C-alpha cells in the first residue's frame, strides 16, 4: 500500500586505478604479465603513431576521410586486449588501434580508408565485423552474433564498440534490451569521448552517467576512467569473464576524450575551446602508461622508431598496390551475379576497353581530389 523504495537500489561505480598524475591504486592494480604490459603499450603507441601518419596521408590526398582515434587508445586497447582471437569484435568506425591488434594488417586498414572494399574484408578466421558508419546500427548485429554463438554453443564473447552519441539512438536501446532479455554473452564498450561531432555530452543526455543506462535493462554498468588503461582492462576483464561464465551482458562507459578531429572532414576549433583540449592533453593515456612502465623498467629502447619503420613499410606496401578494378563494383552485391548485373558489368567492360583505345594518345586530366579533401563548398563552387 504505502509508497516505498524498491529493491534493489542501484549504484553506479566509477573505476580509476592509475590517474593522470601517475598515482596508482595498488589494491586495484590488475595482474598483467610484463610481456603483456609491453604488448599493450606497443599497441597503444602504434595506434597513436599510425593515427598521426594517417592524418598526414589524408591531408595529402593519399587516403580518404577517416575517424582518428587520438586520445582513445586506452579505451580501445584496454578493452580489446581482454578478448580471445575466437571472440567477436564489433567496431563502430573509430577502432583502428583495436583492429590492428585483432590482426588487420596496417596496409589493409589504409586500403579500407582509401576506399577499397578489400580493405574492409576481415580474414576468414578473423572474428571481426567490418566497420559500420550509420551510428549504433552495429549494436543489434552484435547481439545477433551473441545469440547465434549461444545457439551454436560456441564458447565466445562478443565485444561491441560505440560512442556517446550512439546512446541516443534507438538501436542502442533495442540492442541492450534484447541482450538483457536473452542474457547473451556480450560486453558493450562505450567510448564516451565527450563530443558527437559538435554536440557535447550534456546535449546528448540528461543522465548523470551513460553506464547507468545498463541498469534499466537489468545488467551491470560501470564507468571507468577511459584514459587509464589499467582501469579499462580491469573492468573489461571482469565483464568478459562474466559473459563467458554465462552471467550475461555488461555495459562499460569509458570516459575519454577525442583529442583530434571527429573525422578528417571536421574542424573542432569551431565548437570547442583550446583550454578544454589542453586540459585533456594533460590526461593523455599514453603519458601515464609510459610513466607506469618506466617505473617497472618495461620500456623498450627505440620502440617509437621501430613502430615508425613498421608503419613506413606498410605505407609503402599500400602505395604499391594497384588501383581497384572498376569491374569489381558488381562483386558482392549478391552472392551470385544476377542477369541484370551481368549485363551492366559487360557494358562497363566494353566502355572501359573503348576508353583505353581512345585515350591512348591523350593526356589524362588530373584526378579529382578525394572526399574530405575538397576545399570548396557548394556555395563557393
Amino acid at each position, binding site marked *: 500500500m504505502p509508497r516505498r523504495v524498491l529493491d534493489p537500489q542501484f549504484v553506479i561505480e566509477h573505476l580509476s586505478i592509475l590517474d593522470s598524475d601517475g598515482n596508482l591504486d595498488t589494491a586495484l592494480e590488475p595482474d598483467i604479465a610484463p610481456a603483456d604490459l609491453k604488448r599493450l603499450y606497443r599497441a597503444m603507441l602504434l595506434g597513436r603513431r599510425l593515427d598521426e601518419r594517417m592524418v598526414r596521408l589524408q591531408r595529402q590526398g593519399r587516403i580518404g576521410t577517416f575517424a582518428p582515434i587520438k586520445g582513445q587508445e586506452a579505451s580501445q586497447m584496454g578493452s580489446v586486449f581482454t578478448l580471445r582471437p575466437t571472440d*567477436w569484435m564489433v567496431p563502430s568506425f573509430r577502432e583502428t588501434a583495436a583492429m590492428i591488434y585483432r590482426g588487420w594488417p596496417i596496409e589493409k586498414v589504409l586500403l579500407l580508408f582509401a576506399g577499397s*572494399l*578489400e*580493405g*574492409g*574484408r*576481415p580474414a*576468414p578466421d578473423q572474428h571481426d*565485423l*567490418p566497420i*559500420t558508419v*550509420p551510428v549504433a*546500427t552495429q*549494436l*543489434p*548485429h*552484435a*547481439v*545477433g*552474433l*551473441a*545469440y*547465434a*554463438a549461444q*545457439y*551454436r554453443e560456441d564458447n565466445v564473447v562478443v565485444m561491441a564498440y560505440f560512442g556517446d552519441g550512439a546512446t541516443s539512438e*534507438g*538501436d542502442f536501446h*533495442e*540492442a541492450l*534490451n*534484447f541482450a538483457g*532479455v536473452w542474457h547473451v554473452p556480450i560486453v558493450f564498450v562505450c567510448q564516451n569521448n565527450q563530443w558527437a561531432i559538435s554536440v557535447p555530452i550534456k546535449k546528448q543526455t540528461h543522465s548523470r552517467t551513460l553506464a547507468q543506462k545498463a541498469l534499466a535493462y537489468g545488467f551491470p554498468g560501470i564507468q571507468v576512467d577511459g584514459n587509464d588503461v589499467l582501469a579499462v582492462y580491469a573492468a573489461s576483464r571482469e565483464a568478459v569473464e562474466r559473459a563467458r561464465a554465462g552471467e550475461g551482458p555488461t555495459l562499460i562507459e569509458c570516459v575519454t576524450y577525442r583529442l583530434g578531429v571527429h573525422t578528417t572532414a571536421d574542424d573542432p576549433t569551431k565548437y570547442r575551446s583550446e583550454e578544454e583540449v589542453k586540459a585533456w592533453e594533460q590526461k593523455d593515456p599514453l603519458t601515464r602508461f609510459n610513466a607506469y612502465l618506466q617505473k617497472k623498467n618495461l620500456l623498450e629502447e627505440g620502440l617509437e622508431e621501430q613502430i615508425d619503420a613498421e608503419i613506413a613499410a606498410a605505407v609503402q606496401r599500400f602505395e604499391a598496390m594497384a588501383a581497384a578494378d572498376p569491374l569489381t563494383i558488381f*562483386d*558482392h*552485391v*549478391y*552472392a*551470385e551475379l*544476377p*542477369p*541484370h548485373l551481368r549485363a551492366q558489368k559487360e557494358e562497363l567492360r566494353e566502355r572501359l576497353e573503348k576508353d583505353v583505345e581512345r585515350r591512348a594518345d591523350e593526356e589524362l586530366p588530373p584526378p579529382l581530389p578525394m572526399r574530405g579533401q575538397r576545399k570548396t563548398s557548394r556555395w563557393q563552387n
Partner: protein
Amino acid sequence: MAVMTYREALNLALREEMHRDPRVFLIGEEIGLYDGAYKVTQGLLKEFGERRVVDTPICESGFTGVAVGAAMLGLRPVVEMMTFNFSILALDQIVNSAAKLYYMSGGQYSVPMVIRGPGGPAHQLAAQHSQSMEVYFYHVPGLKVVRPSTPRDAKGLLKSAIRDDNPVIFIEAETLYGIKGEVPDDPEFTIPLGKAEIRREGTDVTVFAYMGMMYRALEVAEELAKEGISCEVVDPRTLRPMDIETMIGSVRKTHRAVVVEAGAGFAGMGSEIAAFVTENAFDDLDAPVERITGANAPMPYAKNLEQAKTPSKEKIIATIRRVCSA
C-alpha cells in the same frame, strides 16, 4: 499433390526447411506462443522449441538487426513482420545492413535471411496497414523481392528464399492466406527465384499482375475473351531480380502490355515494368505500355472508399480495350 491453403503452404515450407537445416530459425513478434498474428507459424514453437522459434520484444528494427548479426555468423533467420507496413521501422537495418554487409565486408559475410509477412491492400486495414511495401525494397541493390500469388508459389518460393544466400524480402497478403490450391508434397519441391509464370496464355495483350491483382486480371481475361480479346496474364513472382526472358518474351508475342498494380502508382512496380518493356521491346510494341494503379493517395478505411482507391475490374477492362484498339 495435396490441396491446402496459402497459409498452410507457408507453414509447411517453414517446417520442412527447419527439419532440413538446423541453422534455420524463426524470429518475430507473437510467432511462438500465439502462433503468429495470421497463424503462419502455427505449431512450430511446440515442434522446434524456444531456441528456434523466438518471440521477441516488440521492436522491428531490433529483431531485424539481431537477425542480420545471426545470419553473419552462419544461421539462417526467417524474420516475421506482423505486417510489412511495420518493416518501415526496420528500414535502416534492411537497407543499410542486411543489403550492404556482404558488399561492405568484401564478400566475407553473407546475410542469408528472409523477412516475410503480409503486405498490400487487404480489407479495411486503412492507411498505415495497406501499403504495397515492395516498392520500398526492390530499389535496393543486394535485396531480392518476392510476391507469391498462389499456395504452390508460397511454398516453393519460400523454400528457395530460405535456401538463398542473400537477404530476401518475401511479402505475402492477408487476403490470400485463406485461398486453397494444389501444393506438391515433395520436401525437395522448390521454385527458383527470378522466374515469372504465365498464368494464362493469350495472343493480343500481356497483362502483368501479381497477388490479388493477378486474380482480378484472370477474371478480366475471362470476360475479355468473350469479346475476342485474348489476354496473356504474366505473374512476375520475383520482382527482383526480374525474369527478363519470360516477361519480354510475352510482350514480343502479344505486342501490347499493361501492368495492373494495387499500390499507389508513382514510381511503383508498374513504372519499372513499363520502363523495362520499353527498353527491351520498344520495336515490338504496337501501343504504349499502360499502367492501372491504385489512386496516389493513402488507403481510406471506409469500405466504399477503399474500393474506389483500388484498381477496379471495369478500369482494367477499359484500359485493355483502349490498348488493344490502338
